[in-house]
């Protein structure tokens, strides 16, 4: 009998996350694909000194980015508002000038948080590389910009590239629509985003899903994250009003 990967509650699923952990948070930014219930459980757990790895991060609360109009947006800024996070690596933490400051920008201005801003394609490729056993790769993105500072430059066929290294984490909190009891995952629409790659790049991958089905309940052509990558699955309550 394979290991039981199903956690009874969001609180149980994150209970062993210690202070000082690095945490990938899936999705793109916005409600779809964000593991919102797992994030709330981690906030409630109260551990501190966290390093967050996200993408578009913390701008929904002040801009409404990616959230339906009738809901109050929830975003990664919660860990900076609570003081739990001291660092974030992401691609888009700052909203436009016409918006109020985000929690992340406020924490950065007040010296409470380090913010490491990475080009989105480099960020996802670094995460993918960690899962794929590639310690480093070259990319053309960022050459001639502040992103290139201190990095190795190298020419291939007359063009200059930067060396970028794999980015892993202790935990990945991700969101899928369907899991089978073995841990195979299926996503819907644009909710894939950073979720599949993050699932491969963390020591422990925890998944929030709408539905857990028996083995065989996912079309073999639609397994978008292999069960091998998944450690824990939590099913949302039926009718959860959050996206």
């Amino acid at each position, binding site marked *: 009998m394979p290991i039981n990967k199903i956690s009874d509650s969001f609180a149980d699923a994150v209970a062993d996350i210690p202070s000082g952990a690095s945490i990938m948070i899936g999705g*793109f*930014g*916005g*409600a*779809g*694909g964000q593991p919102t219930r797992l994030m709330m459980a981690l906030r409630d757990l109260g551990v501190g000194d966290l390093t967050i790895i996200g*993408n*578009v991060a913390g*701008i*929904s609360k002040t801009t*409404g*980015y*990616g*959230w*339906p*109009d*009738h809901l109050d947006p929830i975003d990664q800024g919660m860990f900076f508002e609570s003081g739990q996070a001291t660092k974030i690596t992401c*691609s*888009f*933490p*700052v*909203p*436009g*000038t*016409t*918006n109020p400051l985000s929690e992340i*920008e406020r924490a950065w*201005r007040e010296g409470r948080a380090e913010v490491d*801003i*990475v*080009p*989105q*394609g*480099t960020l*996802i*490729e670094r995460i*993918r590389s960690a899962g794929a056993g590639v310690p480093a790769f070259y*990319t*053309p*993105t*960022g*050459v*001639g*910009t*502040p*992103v290139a500072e201190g990095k190795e430059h190298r020419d291939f066929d007359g063009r200059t590239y930067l060396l970028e290294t794999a980015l892993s984490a202790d935990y990945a909190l991700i969101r899928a*629509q369907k899991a089978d009891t073995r841990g195979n995952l299926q*996503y*819907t*629409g*644009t*909710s*894939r*985003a*950073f*979720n*599949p*790659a993050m699932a491969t790049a963390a020591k422990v991958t925890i998944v929030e899903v709408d539905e857990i089905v028996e083995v065989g309940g996912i079309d073999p052509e639609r397994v*978008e994250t292999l069960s091998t990558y998944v450690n824990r699955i939590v099913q949302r309550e039926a009718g959860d009003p959050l*996206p």
Partner: protein
Amino acid sequence: MSISGSTSGTNSGNPAGNDPAPRLDRAAVAKRAARDLVDGSTVNLGIGIPALCADFLPDGVELLYHAENGILGFKELSAPGEGDPNLMDAGGKFPKLVPGMAFFDSVESFNLIRGGHIDVTVLGALQVSRTGDLANWIIPKRGIGSIGGAMDLAANAKRVVIAMEHTARGDMPKIVEECTFPLTAPGCVDEIITDIAVIKIDRASGRMILRETAPGWSFDDVQALTEATLVVDGEIVVMS
């Protein structure tokens, strides 16, 4: 996606009132940019004026829109209140489900960009230099900015077009000899379409060639609002 859409939107026009003729509105700039988009192309539009291009495609032109969050082939947005959070574009809006769409993850999305498979990207800018350097992700005095997909798009799309207002607040030039803002990518811009001009960048020779001016605007009028030296190479036509 870059923040330039919202920041370039802070330009308040021409307070001194010495323009020779009206500047084009945002829609007209988008319409002019849309005219160059080639049927069947894979295109990524930034937020702000670039996103408006989709409303002004010439008849018979169908584009394949790509958004960084993992969608190809979307068209119009859902009605307010009807969007699906799992069907989002990179600007955080909710397009409708239409036939021929494709969903994929961020790895694939940036393979498409980094691999040079995007035919055209239309982006906003804070500054563009004479040699095509682009700055559109951070305002230095703010100290912190958002890169998003802008660096990947600017460095790797086959063609980079900037659609923006010609000047910033107080008619500060945005088209400059050298960017003073941190770059998004060096030497990447092919063409600039603004509310008073269309400028081609000949990167091989480092020349900015003025191709078109808004109705009532002369070469000298445009040059006066442009820090970079403009040149003429062929006829200058009136923007339409």
